[in-house]
């Protein structure tokens, strides 16, 4: 029983890592632009598909495809900001948020045109077609699960270092905190926003590539990934990066724990009800501040 529970928690943390990266991406874009990007999950899929192409068509190792897909995500993020968010934001944040919903469907059908509508496999990071599995006290631990959780931790450390310890990272936070004040000290606010969006989309592409070997990449999964990441962000607190991370992991674990004993079909309604419940009862999230809601 305990082994079974541990098994589910481990699986939940793995899937939840993807939601955590989506939640963080939503947080970063919201901070910088006041726009909620509902297409975040679609960029997860796009990143995974780009990695799939790098592996299957260009015969690259998936470990090479990972930084390539992440860098491509960054570049696509710059385009997304310049072509969608920035022009739409001129008519208001709500317009821009709706434009991200439009982006969901452009990407969804775009992916189907290029890669087909069926999910594609990505090789496991250790072992290729079949993952390496260890048995520890009755619990099966797959190498990919270690990769996912370890790479999530590495991404979090890199983000923390960038935003807390580098001048440009602080300048981006300053531009998000007070755009007018940022202009007064000579920060290029438009550029700071573009870089913020690019980082968020790079995170999504990174997430799609590390989770891809477990979930397959492509198909119509992006919408659910977006919404579950969003639930994670709301549960943890949209304005708190730690809250977003823990919230995303929590949603992943909750989903696994609900699915196994109650059979498939119960997890999604519960997770989406959680979104409504949180918005009604504690809109700032468990780790967010009241200030964020009023802003």
């Amino acid at each position, binding site marked *: 029983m305990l082994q079974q529970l541990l098994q589910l928690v481990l699986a939940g943390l793995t899937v939840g890592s993807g939601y955590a990266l989506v939640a963080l991406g939503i947080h970063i874009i919201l901070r910088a632009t006041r726009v909620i990007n509902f297409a975040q999950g679609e960029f997860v899929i796009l990143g995974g598909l780009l990695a799939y192409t790098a592996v299957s068509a260009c015969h690259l190792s998936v470990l090479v495809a990972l930084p390539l897909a992440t860098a491509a995500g960054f570049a696509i993020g710059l385009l997304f900001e310049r072509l969608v968010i920035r022009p739409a934001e001129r008519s208001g944040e709500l317009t821009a948020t709706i434009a991200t919903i439009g982006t969901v469907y452009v990407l969804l059908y775009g992916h189907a045109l290029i890669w087909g509508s069926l999910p594609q496999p990505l090789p496991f990071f250790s072992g290729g077609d079949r993952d390496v599995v260890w048995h520890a006290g009755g619990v099966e631990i797959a190498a990919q699960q270690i990769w996912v959780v370890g790479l999530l931790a590495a991404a979090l450390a890199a983000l923390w270092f960038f935003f807390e310890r580098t*001048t440009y990272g*602080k*300048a981006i*936070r*300053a531009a998000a*905190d*007070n755009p*007018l*004040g*940022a*202009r*007064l*000290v*000579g*920060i*290029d606010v438009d550029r700071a926003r573009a870089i913020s969006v690019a980082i968020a989309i790079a995170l999504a592409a990174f997430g799609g590539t590390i989770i891809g070997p477990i979930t397959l990449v492509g198909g119509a999964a992006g919408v659910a990934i977006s919404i579950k990441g969003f639930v994670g962000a709301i549960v943890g607190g949209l304005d708190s990066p730690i809250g977003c991370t823990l919230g995303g992991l929590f949603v992943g674990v909750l989903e696994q724990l609900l699915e196994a004993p109650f059979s498939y079909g119960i997890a999604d309604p519960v997770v989406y009800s959680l979104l409504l419940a949180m918005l009604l009862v504690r809109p700032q999230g468990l780790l967010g501040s009241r200030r964020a809601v009023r802003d």
Partner: protein
Amino acid sequence: MAALLELRGVHAGYGRLAVLHGVSIDVQAGELVAVLGPNGAGKSTLLRTISRFEATLSAGSVRFDGRDLAARTPEAIVRDGLLHVPEGRQLFAGLSVDDNLRLGGYTRPRAGLEQAVADTYARFPMLAERRSQEAFSLSGGEQQMLAIARALIARPRLLMLDEPSTGLAPQIVEGIFELVRDLKRAGTAVLLVEQNAYLTLKNADRAYVLENGSIALAGSAAELARDERVQAIYLGGAADEAGE
């Protein structure tokens, strides 16, 4: 000698709202110049037009150090050495005092920044005490000092202060004027918009009186302090407001 800052026939405002109607002023290098005038005269808009902070120029020219500012981005203007501390201060409320200060030096080379931060803490000991606090937790006077200190880290050649003393205790106001005198001694030009006409005229080299978006009077601070209209409206008014 060409002036450091030179405005000629400036018309400016916000969108279709015209606030300034043909304003011409000069600030020489190292000079302390004041702008007085009633509320709504366009004093803040004047500074906002110069730094391209929200207000937009519709006619006329603004030149800083010989460069036409209409062709420069707000970031480039900061890099040129023209710094603006607006009303409302525009601090980074959620960032620490230390981060606020260091971001003030965003446009300058990293070399020398540590020394400048250390000098700033020596000059403003109360900021040193609060260096790791978030800026929103400071008192009004401390926030004003931080806003000025953040601008000074960028090594301005011209510092524009918009009503730095408004809403602050007399002791803090005196501290701000002392700081302005220090800046002048160090050769930094200051363009000061103030409500406190008495202290302003006592410290300034020259002053302009702005009324309804146009320059109504101009001259040395000493001349203006003797002017009957200025005495009646601003110095009298300042005495009334002193109780606020």
